[in-house]
């Protein structure tokens, strides 16, 4: 493709903007380049950050899987907004409500788990009691000697 059809530097004059809009097949009023911050965008148009999930599934696109028409300018993050990836379609519940509910739940659970670690609570326990004089023979005691008597009870 010839050089004037490929992306170039940031457009400075209105004529350059009009030429860039025509190059990208957009209206001059719709064309809005990324701000000239030196980040490497050039004159590429800043399209709305909407994923492919939001595009009409019933329209006859030229490329149905990509929901994209031939010659239509692609979003800079096109490969992020695919239908397998990021989805920006509207949710039934607003985002700030979902975030608030999730953070309340998460913080409650974490605080309760933390408190449970600091102040554990369980039924009263005593030391484990072993039979056969505290397992005298199993622990290697001499079978010929008399084992020490171990009582675990008081009457």
């Amino acid at each position: 493709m010839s050089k004037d059809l490929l992306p170039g530097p940031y457009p400075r004059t209105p004529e350059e903007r009009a030429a860039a809009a025509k190059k990208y097949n957009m209206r001059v009023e719709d064309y809005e380049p990324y701000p000239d911050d030196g980040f490497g965008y050039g004159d590429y148009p800043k399209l709305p950050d909407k994923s492919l999930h939001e595009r009409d599934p019933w329209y006859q696109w030229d490329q149905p899987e990509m929901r994209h028409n031939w010659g239509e300018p692609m979003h800079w993050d096109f490969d992020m907004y695919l239908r397998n990836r990021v989805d920006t379609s509207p949710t039934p519940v607003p985002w700030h409500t979902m975030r608030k509910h999730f953070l309340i739940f998460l913080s409650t659970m974490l605080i309760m788990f933390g408190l449970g670690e600091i102040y554990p609570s369980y039924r009263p326990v005593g030391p484990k009691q072993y039979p056969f004089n505290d397992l005298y023979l199993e622990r290697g005691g001499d079978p010929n000697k008399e084992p020490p008597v171990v009582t675990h009870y008081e009457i």
Partner: protein
Amino acid sequence: MAAGPPPSAAEAYRPNRYVSLPAELDPNTYDLSPEKRRAEAERLAIRARLKRQYQLQLNNPNPPTVIEDPALVRWVYARTQNVYPTFRPTPKTSFLGALYAIGPIVFWITVLKADRDRKEKLIKEGKYKRPLSVL
């Protein structure tokens, strides 16, 4: 101090980078003014012209081997070859470049060094229990 009017449904929804406003709440989908209709008509004209070009190539009796999409070529070029010519060192880009390039290296150097110094101190004091090694 009286509160203002209650927020409209679109304002209560508060769309952001991660969700868009539903079409039912968006005032742009209702009551299109004549200017907006003219803009839509111009966009439709551009779309129809592009569709015609594509269909002519597609239904050609001797179709070309590959119908190249100029939008795709431009997208690839913009993301790969047009970044360096249009890059400009500014305070923001320099700071971000240093942060992402030098930051992780410096971070991991300090973390590993601090960990090894702590272990060395424990070994010197005799408090470190050597882990079991099967090698």
